């Protein structure tokens, strides 16, 4: 169980008494690998950044007296001769969820020390991430072609463009960064670095980042595309 926690001779308690025990003594607070705790703290700070973007989007949408463009129509895509609302966005959502699933499985197989399967699952995750970014690039160029700019657009309130490019752009940047991060870890897994130290924590940590990117998309999908 917790023999490896040498910082306290006492046994770790669960629940609220464990909470008090963790915070009240002069010792390590988080009984988690430091890399994981630090990734969580980074993600917490990132949460605030994305929240600022979404809140500023809420504010300009409330304050404008010009009607907001209907995202259902703006993001419709022609399929089989009919305009299907949010088609590309729905596909992107499913791709990101699928990549989250493969990532979760990769973490699981990591702790089973199954190097080959981890490499395959993480490669699938990275490829799905790349396809997500590709579709976002397609969506951007489509909207730019239709005349959407950060300072105006033909569909309604001028702030629509700046909110769209800022929010989806920053999210896309996170996906791109995540793919690069994934590739770095994949190479290390392949090389057997984590078998040598008998510890696959790094896979779980990159997983945390990747799930966060998916998590942010859940909020963007709800507030920007569906609202």
């Amino acid at each position, binding site marked *: *169980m*917790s023999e*490896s*926690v040498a910082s306290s001779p006492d046994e*770790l308690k669960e*629940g*609220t008494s*464990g*909470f008090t025990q*963790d*915070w009240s003594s002069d010792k390590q*607070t*988080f*009984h*988690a*690998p430091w890399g994981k*705790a630090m990734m*969580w*703290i980074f*993600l*917490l700070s990132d949460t605030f950044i994305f*929240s600022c973007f979404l*809140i500023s989007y*809420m*504010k300009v949408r*409330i*304050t*404008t*007296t010009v*009607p907001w463009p209907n995202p*259902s129509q703006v993001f419709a895509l022609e399929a089989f001769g009919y305009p299907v609302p*949010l088609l590309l966005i*729905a596909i992107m*959502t*499913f791709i990101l*969820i*699928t990549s*989250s*699933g493969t*990532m*979760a*499985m990769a973490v*699981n197989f990591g*702790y089973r020390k199954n190097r080959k399967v981890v490499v395959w699952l993480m490669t699938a995750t990275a490829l799905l991430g790349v396809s997500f970014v590709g579709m976002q690039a397609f969506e951007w160029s489509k909207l730019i072609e*239709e005349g959407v700019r950060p300072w105006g657009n*033909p*569909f*309604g309130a001028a702030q629509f463009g700046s909110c769209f490019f800022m929010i989806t752009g920053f999210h896309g940047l996170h996906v791109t960064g995540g793919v690069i991060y994934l590739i770095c870890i994949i190479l290390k897994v392949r090389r057997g670095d984590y078998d040598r130290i008998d510890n696959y*924590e790094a896979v*779980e940590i990159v997983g*945390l980042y990747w*799930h*966060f990117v*998916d*998590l942010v998309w*859940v909020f963007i*999908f*709800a507030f920007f595309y*569906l*609202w």
Partner: protein
Amino acid sequence: MSSEEGQQHPIAIYLWIWLLLFVLSAFSYMVDIAGFQGILRWSLILLFMFLKAGIIIAVFMHMQWERLSLATAILGPPVVLIVFIGLMAIEGSYTEGLREYFFSPPEVTFSTPHH
């Protein structure tokens, strides 16, 4: 269970959660397809959003298996965002009211893209 040993859980959990995320995403997409409007639309969107976010954090990110000290340190601070959102919503409605009042609603005409 200490997380020192790493997060090891049966694969079935992940597959079920994966499926659940697909179903919830399909539901939130259906809200748009079905064309629900008003309070029904917003409450459904928020419901599916929070369910999805919750299970991603709890299961995929393993938060439900982490110790309470880590979970509260990470999940507690974002709660202040509710205050931030509330303040900005109130202030936003005020600004909108002023604009409605002082800049009488302009007759906006939208031109279709002409090139």
